[in-house]
């Protein structure tokens, strides 16, 4: 078993659209149902976090730029950590992720343990 980071990316503009409380609740339930499904398989390592759309980038020579990162089109919206035998199983676990319903992507990366 290895740990895999699932990174959710989607269009920044899209994630900033206003939602009604009901829509927000429904979206939360959809995410919770998907994560709950992974947890029910005992494959969830960490429920991760959501990230605020705005941010800053610090580059060499202390050059600071502000987000949102329109130039890269798809920004990181959040992540979770799962465990799986291999990258294929981790990819299968990613199926059904709600980000896919709004045209986003899930990036699956194996975590290399630091010993």
């Amino acid at each position, binding site marked *: 078993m290895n740990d895999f980071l699932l990174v959710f990316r989607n269009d920044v503009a899209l994630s900033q659209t206003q939602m009604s409380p009901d829509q927000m609740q429904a979206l939360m*339930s959809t995410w919770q*149902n998907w994560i*709950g499904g992974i947890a*029910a398989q005992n494959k*969830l390592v960490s429920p991760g976090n959501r990230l605020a759309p705005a941010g800053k980038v610090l580059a060499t020579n202390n050059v600071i730029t502000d987000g949102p990162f329109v130039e890269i089109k798809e920004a990181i919206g959040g992540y979770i950590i799962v465990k799986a035998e291999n990258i294929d199983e981790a990819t299968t676990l990613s199926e059904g992720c709600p980000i896919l319903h709004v045209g986003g992507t899930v990036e699956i990366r194996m975590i290399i343990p630091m010993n």
Partner: protein
Amino acid sequence: MEQPALLPDLFRTEYSKIVAVLCKYFGMPFLEQAEDIASETFLLASNTWGLKGLPNNPTAWLYTVAKNKAIDFIKHNQVFKQKVYPEIIISSQTSYVPEPDLSPSNIMDSQLKMMFAICNPIIPVEAQVGLALNILCGFGADEIAEAFLTNRDVIYKRLQRAKQKLREENITIDIPPQNEIAVRLDAVLTTVYLLFNEGYFSSSQNNALRKDLCIEAMRLNVLLLENATTNTAESNALLALMCFHASRFEARINNSGEMVLYEEQNEQLWNKELIHKGEYYLNNSAGGNQISTYHLEAAIAYWHTHKQDTQEKWENILQLYNKLLQVNYSPIAALNRTYALAKVMGAAIAIKEAEKLKLEQTLQYHMLLGHLYAQVDLNTALSYLQNAENLTKRESEKRLLADLQIKLQHLP
């Protein structure tokens, strides 16, 4: 002829109080002596009361005899005289040894402190549950063995080893200091939770005994709420959970002592008072800054006190299971979540999710899939129920599963 019933009743309530008070008074190395004095007190009671009739106040009689025996012990035991006696005198700041105090407040205090002593990390968890039953609830090795579905010798040895450990390590009988209380209270709550589950879910056929275990677990939990330090959000949540479960005690077992499934229970038999108490403790549990597994389980149990199937009920239960599994995975929570998922999203989606769970070795997995397939594919449903029937060794469950198969086959 009330007398024959009285002594066992008193034993159940008073034996553990005497042991707790005396053990706290003597110190943990003298646990065995505290138990001996309590036993001798009851032996004397059964002999004397049989001959002379009941005293006016049986409980006071027991306390006086136990107290005198305790004083006698400290006067004549050499080890106690040389080592412990001087310490008691120094700590009490008087020149004489104070008598053991069997007042209600000191009984409660002693039992609470004994809970922390017993639920000590140096004792294996299953032994903690046994010790709690034995020392705090006055259950004998035979009863504990019956509840745990094991033989008396196993339990007896387990208790002896654990008690030896308590004595050797000279565990202090006190409420842990502020910096340890959270972790230590966690262990106490785990033991209370396991004690309750042992009664509620155990496969022992002795219903009176099972009910006693549940009541004892709730009594110990109430003890925790009566002390400001241990009256936490979590301990309130645990008591709420137990109240909700216990409210169905009468409805879940029929006249022939067999389990009645939730769907078929007569909700008139649900104990409304316990449900209200559960709601009260659940409200009290809201203050904390952390949502524990007890909070989540109590909230699920709360929704189950509403018999009627509503979208709101199952939506809430599903979300609570989603959270519970993220905090604390267990196969049974995974299966229950899938059941709730079927209620919210239909059998087809739930079947797909159930088949991912990889719990083929558990009985409930096959029962769940049998249930879900019943609405979709009859033959598959029957084969799952057959698997379940093959997996269980208990006759009552075999009968239940065989009946379910017959019912399914005769559906119009």
